[in-house]
């Protein structure tokens, strides 16, 4: 109740700043009588209740989380289709690059935060499995003329080791996105080594020193307190663990930047309206990209969280940056 009154008061002040006549009759009677104390509280609270950006809008921090949740709840069903349409399929290349740089070995544990529909987790499991097969093939080639005893031994050990080792946990704050991801997994028949958890990146429900790799792909710009998310990443990673972040970033080349801006602001919301029926969410998406810190600044933030050997790779001329750091 107090919160809604605070919002009301703030809205009124905003309106009055714009020299719009707000009649007292417009306000509910209750706010009229406690105007004085609530306005005082409002000003002091405004100092404490920090505001942040939601795209190009300014909102309070609590509002941002709710609004972001709403955005992804709306787009969850069409998320993958929209990704393909907006990036012209290039997002697959970006994600494959992430896996390539990650180069996971069989037996590692991955935490994919803001993993939503599970793209990174699926790629991870596939990569690890193909790695295992490559190793098996190499082992088989090295054994020139195996005896039947050796072959039967190999078969028995293979089944035990394989599926148990590498695990991927997909964590997302949004249930709808995870539901879509789980459906995808079920339809692709991937279930071994894959887990789904609803959780907040700023308050991860995982114990310390648990994961070998922490990834967050195109999710960190939606987090209200990025530094908290980075600290949580530091906490849950094992010593020697790797933090990897794929995110839209600043384009360095000015010509490309101009083209990219035009494409972003003219095409993407239109695509959003046509395909997903949601202009505003994709307007938010495009604006939130502009609000996110650039490569160097984000690198600094990662270093502040306690990661070492932080570096970034620019993909597609800086449209996307892959940041990587280690917990040592």
């Amino acid at each position: 109740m107090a919160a809604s009154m605070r919002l009301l008061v703030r809205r009124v002040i905003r309106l009055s700043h714009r020299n719009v006549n707000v009649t007292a009759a417009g306000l509910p009677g209750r706010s009229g009588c406690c105007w004085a104390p609530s306005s005082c509280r409002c000003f002091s609270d405004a100092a404490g209740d920090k505001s942040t950006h939601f795209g190009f809008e300014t909102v309070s921090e609590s509002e941002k989380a709710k609004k972001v949740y709403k955005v992804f709840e709306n787009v969850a069903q069409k998320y993958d289709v929209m990704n393909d349409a907006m990036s012209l399929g290039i997002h697959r290349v970006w994600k494959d690059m992430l896996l390539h740089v990650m180069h996971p070995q069989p037996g590692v544990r991955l935490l994919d935060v803001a993993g939503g529909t599970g793209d990174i987790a699926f790629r991870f499991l596939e990569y690890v499995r193909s790695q295992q097969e490559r190793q098996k093939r190499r082992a088989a080639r090295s054994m020139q003329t195996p005896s039947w005893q050796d072959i039967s031994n190999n078969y028995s050990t293979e089944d035990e080791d394989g599926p148990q080792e590498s695990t991927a946990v997909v964590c997302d704050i949004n249930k709808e996105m995870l539901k879509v991801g789980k459906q995808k997994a079920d339809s692709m028949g991937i279930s071994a080594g894959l887990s789904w958890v609803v959780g907040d990146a700023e308050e991860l429900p995982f114990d310390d020193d648990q994961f070998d790799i922490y990834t967050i792909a195109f999710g960190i710009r939606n987090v209200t307190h990025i530094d908290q998310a980075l600290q949580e990443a530091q906490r849950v990673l094992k010593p020697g663990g790797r933090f990897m972040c794929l995110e839209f970033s600043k384009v360095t080349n000015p010509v490309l930047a101009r083209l990219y801006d035009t494409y972003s602001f003219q095409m993407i919301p239109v695509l959003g309206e046509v395909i997903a029926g949601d202009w505003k969410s994709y307007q938010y998406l495009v604006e939130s990209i502009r609000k996110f810190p650039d490569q160097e600044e984000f690198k600094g933030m990662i270093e502040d969280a306690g990661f070492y050997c932080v570096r970034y790779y620019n993909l597609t001329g800086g449209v996307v940056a892959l940041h990587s750091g280690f917990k040592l």
Partner: protein
Amino acid sequence: MLRNVLGRLVTDTVRVHRYVNGAPLIQRLTPASVSVRSFSDVKDEVQQPFDASLLEFLVCPLSKKPLRYEAETNELINDELGIAYPIIGGIPNMIPQEARLIQKDTDTTTTTTPTQG
């Protein structure tokens, strides 16, 4: 839960009657097979293991202490703080605001999080 199964039965049979134009025999058969399937589907969803191996590293986001899996209510319980996190569709929901306060009488959702980090 039984209501959900019955509801699904009803909608499935209605749907089948609407779309199937074939012989009445088939019509009569399909609802039965659908109902059998729906029963097993519901059972599968509930049994769909909440993967207990998750409990190895899953903790309460507030206290960072390990949780206890309660099979009857299908929840993860933090006895220390007295809250229960629901598991929906095999996916545990570890958002503090969605957790249930375990008290003797009340059953309301709680906002115990100190949101300033």
